[in-house]
């Protein structure tokens, strides 16, 4: 890499900031863990972690909170990536928590498992004794996230208190916490959806195939396209049909919607994202639609 005039591109500047955050955490915490879902943000996060410690291996484990409603392509990708990097994968299973009676599943055909992720995540953090938890959240995703710090303090209950956040200045991060408390760390805070896509293209990072246009049977529910299968079955009046779609985010299949798209390559996806007029979460996440403050409420409870 040869740089003239000592300028960095925005992606280089963002990368430098994220790498700095990873190293800061590795130096100051005892047991960090990285949340890895196999989604594009966590894939980018993992790449940045790889860069931060190269040529050494990533010095912490990765954790997937598995709702049990997964896209097969994503699970396959997750396992392959973890294997390549030689990191250890922990899985917190929502299904097991349901089976053990620790959490209760919503009833009805429109039930979502998103809420159930929070207790499972918190339990995994507690059992693992993790003091820093890397999450791939971006501030451009949502209004409450726009206010969250890079180091986000969580109390013993994993709660976020938006009115009582620590000031965060320069790139001096304060990771102080007591036993039982932890810090959520968001190395992608300043990245936008477009930045993520541009970086994936620049770095030639592999991502699961569901991010590209493909044909699959879907139903239209509450204005969203949901893949038919597993927890999602057509209700009365809903007619499954084949559509050319892709996913903008990867989550639980019961509440992650697809968008109609013909974008089959990265370049086409980037062109589409650059032109899109619907935010990522708004288009595809039923969980945020419940109310204007849905995300804030879930974050207070310890959601990522």
């Amino acid at each position, binding site marked *: 890499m040869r740089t003239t005039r000592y300028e960095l591109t925005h992606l280089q500047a963002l990368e430098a900031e994220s790498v700095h955050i990873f190293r800061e955490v590795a130096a100051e915490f005892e047991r960090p863990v990285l949340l890895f879902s196999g989604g594009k943000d966590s894939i980018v996060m993992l790449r940045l972690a790889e860069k931060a410690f190269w040529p050494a291996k990533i010095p912490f484990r990765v954790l997937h909170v598995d709702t049990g409603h997964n896209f097969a392509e994503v699970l396959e990708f997750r396992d392959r990536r973890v294997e390549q990097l030689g990191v250890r994968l922990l899985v917190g299973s929502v299904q097991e928590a349901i089976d053990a009676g620790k959490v209760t599943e919503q009833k009805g055909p429109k039930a979502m498992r998103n809420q159930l992720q929070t207790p499972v995540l918190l339990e995994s953090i507690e059992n693992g004794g993790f003091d820093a938890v890397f999450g791939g959240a971006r501030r451009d995703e949502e209004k409450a996230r*726009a*206010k969250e710090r890079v180091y986000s303090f969580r109390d013993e209950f994993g709660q976020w208190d*938006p009115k009582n956040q620590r000031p965060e*200045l320069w790139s001096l991060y304060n990771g102080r916490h007591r036993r039982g408390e932890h810090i959520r760390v968001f190395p992608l805070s300043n990245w936008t959806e477009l930045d993520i896509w541009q970086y994936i293209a620049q770095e030639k990072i592999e991502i699961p195939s569901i991010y590209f246009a493909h044909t699959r049977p879907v139903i239209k529910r509450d204005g969203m396209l949901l893949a038919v299968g597993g927890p999602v079955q057509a209700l009365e009046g809903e007619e499954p049909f084949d559509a050319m779609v892709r996913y903008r985010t990867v989550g639980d299949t019961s509440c992650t919607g697809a968008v109609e798209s013909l974008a089959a390559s990265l370049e086409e996806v980037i062109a589409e994202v650059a032109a899109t007029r619907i935010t990522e979460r708004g288009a595809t996440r039923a969980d945020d639609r419940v109310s204007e403050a849905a995300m804030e409420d879930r974050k207070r409870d310890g959601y990522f």
Partner: protein
Amino acid sequence: MELLRVATAGSVDDGKSTLIGRLLYDTKSLFSDQLEAVERTSRERGDEYTDLALLTDGLRAEREQGITIDVAYRYFATPKRKFILADTPGHVQYTRNMVTGASTASLALILVDARKGVLQQSRRHAFLASLLRVPHLVLCVNKMDLVDYDQEVFERVKAEFRDFAAKLDIGDLTAIPVSALNGDNIASRSENMPWYEGTSLLHHLEDVHIASDRNLIDVRFPVQYVIRPRGSSGLGEAFHDYRGYAGQVAGGVLKPGDEIVVLPSGLTSRIAAIETMDGPVDEAFPPMSVTVRLEDNLDISRGDMICRPANQPSNTQDISAMVCWMSETSSLVPRQKLAIKHTTRSARAMVKDINYKVDVDTLHRDESAGSLSLNEIGRVSLRTTAPLFHDEYRRNRSTGSFILIDESSGVTVGAGMTLPD
């Protein structure tokens, strides 16, 4: 495409939220679902027009009380630049938010209402921007539509602001007459103000020269993390003896072959290579994150500083600094002990003296103050348990800044900017 970090400041109702909403709208950074949500809320409240300010009021409490309570970050981009905007509220009690937002900003937008002119709060915002060494300042004289786009009003406000700014250390000041509500002089020059010869706000943000804001002279590399691949790195023998010093360049330009000195040991060596996962680089400069390898095997750990033998930072346990106090529950008083974090070093600090407190409105120095409470700023002498390798903040914002942490609660309670000894 370059990155520009911007902070905003303005008193309540000067139109800051509207301005930000307008910037997002005009750069097409708004998405239809966000707009729809805002339109819906506006309608429900009975507003006559879509209140773009709603776009930026993120938290429930703010929606309920109609105020902005904390720093929020917004993102927008034009083909030329990507912008990160720290949106900081302008209430009297929120100095600490502006200090936070300004700490990383290269440019500060200060809003005033054309009808009201330069208020005490505007002076405060200018002072804070200069204290935090934000290199570029833009005065947006807003609501020009309410003063008939009158040039005289603009010139009067501008002159008033310049008078005050002259007392401060402000590098670059630009004044722009705007109407955030109507979009005059925001994305493009307004036909309502033909007398205005400058550029639109967005154009200015795209063009302002920021490359020379960084310190490219004094080589400063705080060691953040030592990379030593162990055992089964999978990379084979090549990395068996690998020892790299990872960090983010805080000043100057590092090159392989450069002679360096490591603080605090004072040992010298040469840079063998500067590496990244993408391959070696032949120059590293701020804010790059790289890994430096040296020709000799020295004992170096986190918190050490790599610099050039002929250009070293101050190396003392006695620090003078301007401190902004941010705690709601305690004051800063002499003999108090705190944790301090500076570059990659952590230590403890004791307050030796509070030399004076600055009245942020008049700039008057009160030498009898004796303590600093929430949102107060003053000159403080500290003694630290270990030497800090620092430069004067005005020379280097990375090696001249520190935070103070309350040792029992763990909360960040102070922000410091070092002064010459």
